[in-house]
């Protein structure tokens, strides 16, 4: 009985979880492993989680925790990957593609995992700041500062995002600035 309900839940929600994991990690294999870890964690407590009626928050929380834990375990390796991804030639190549998705991937890769998670939760999953704070296990104030720093870091480390649109309030860079100011307020 539990087995079947869990299977239905995985079939229904795994694609969405994979997308979130892809945004968090930027690597397909890591994203799949991350989702699998979150699913195993959820399966261990499935009876209790299912009894609540909505397993989605639990599995998403498990996903983010697993992401942060994995980042802590492989911190040095991640740094090497990030360093590789910030090579000038690669940046130039991808900037030249003017592919928004690729630019976003580049930009996220330059953030810390915690900043990346904050942006994904806040602007991809559309969670409120208290909800983000609940998932991250931190305070709302910390979430605000993380968002502010993440946006500032995006503007500082990925100026090529500004080339997608001119530097005006409607441009990416401009909107990032507005978002930063909004987060700081």
């Amino acid at each position: 009985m539990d087995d079947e309900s869990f299977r239905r839940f995985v079939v229904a929600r795994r694609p969405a979880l994979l997308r979130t994991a892809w945004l968090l990690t930027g690597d397909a294999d890591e994203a799949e492993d991350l989702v699998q870890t979150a699913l195993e964690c959820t399966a261990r407590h499935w009876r209790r989680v299912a009894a609540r009626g909505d397993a989605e928050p639990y599995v998403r929380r498990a996903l983010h925790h697993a992401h942060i834990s994995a980042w802590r375990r492989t911190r040095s390796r991640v740094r090497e990957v990030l360093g590789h991804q910030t090579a000038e030639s690669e940046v130039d190549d991808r900037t030249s593609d003017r592919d928004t998705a690729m630019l976003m991937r580049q930009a996220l890769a330059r953030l810390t995992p915690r900043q990346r998670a904050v942006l994904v939760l806040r602007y991809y999953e559309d969670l409120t700041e208290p909800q983000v704070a609940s998932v991250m296990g931190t305070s709302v104030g910390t979430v605000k500062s993380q968002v502010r720093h993440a946006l500032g870091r995006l503007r500082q480390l990925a100026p090529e995002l500004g080339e997608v649109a001119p530097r005006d309030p409607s441009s990416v860079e401009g909107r990032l600035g507005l978002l930063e100011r909004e987060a700081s307020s």
Partner: protein
Amino acid sequence: MNDVLRSGLLALAERTPAARATDDEAARRAWRRRRLAAPPRVVAVALVCGLVALAVVVGLDALGRAPVVPAQGSGSLPARLVVPPVGTPLVTEQPIERAAYVIATGGLRRGTFSRGIAPVAVSADGGAYRVVPWHDGDHGIALSPDGRRLAWVVGDTPRVVTKTVVLTLASGELLEVPDAPTAAEGTAWSDDGSRLLVWGATRISENTAQGGRVEVRDATTLRLLSEDATHPGPAAMVGGRLLVPHQESGTRQTVVWLDRAVVSPDGQRAAQVVMPIIDGTAAGELVVHPVGRAVDSFTPVLRLRAAYAEALAWTRDGIVVATYAGARLRAPAGVEVLDPSTAAVVRTLTSLPADADPDLVVDVDPQVLAVAAGVLASGQVTDSRPRTWPWYSAERVRWWVSDPLAAGLQVGLALLALLGVLGVVHLARRARFA
């Protein structure tokens, strides 16, 4: 306002690569592995709790294993003969004024300590323990009536040449008796403490000693005053008169040897261990007979007990303290206080206090090896209760230092417990994410 960022994220999410495993496979795998992977937090907490519990147990054990302070009192024997804890200082390092009695913590074998464990002098003033500077094979120890000097024979006989030494407890000074028998067997003090008696063989062949003599020496200068070359001892001196118990031989039931004779303080009686041959087997017997008469199995003597006593002592009021090693004739080990007038056992001394840990002691059958007849005025037993040293005392610290393995283990476990607590705090902080 955040549409650009959101649209960028959505665009990137739409480009999520296809997963290697299907959703069904992922679900099945996760469901299978849910029982295999224990929650790491639970395991960590269990591990930490286990370490903390272990540290607590070891800590409580350390508190419980505190070395025991010997029973107090000098007028009589304590009810409990507390074995010396590890780290007990040498009497030459920390002298004491006088001793009430000397105990041994190892098995005795014809007056020597079979396990090479040194005897311990118990202070008559406070009950402090002091280890006698002892070597394996030393034997024939005697405590002066005032409890201020110890005499014994250094070296095992008859294979080696022995020397006799006198230790002054108050100063730790060790004097060697000159020209003593080359195969000395034992020592004794006169009743007034002014003379030291040393007896043993005078000549040594390949492996045996021949002849024998009893020397009478001045207790202060150790100068030879007189000697009796007709007997190898043991001997006693009461009222200035040298008493050498006689041994009769040639009878059918021969006294195969006469050993460890101890003369009573009044010089009238001697307690001895005789070994008559009964049905071809040497049977130990503790007897009391008048001094100056030959001893054999036909002589009417007071038989105190059919057992082989390793050490005998008289107290001033005429009570015999007998120590049985237990190794011979399968007799039980222990210390008994006997009344020679009635042949009754007055008291059996407890050899180990109830609250002492056997791991702490070096042996569980301490023995009364010698008593100071002038100090141990009564054969009665003081029902004293030992206590443990407090954790801050110098004796306790010395005990810790002398046992680096236990100390290191406990410090290590304490550090582990500390790490465990830090780990719990860390996990608790991480648990806020859940």
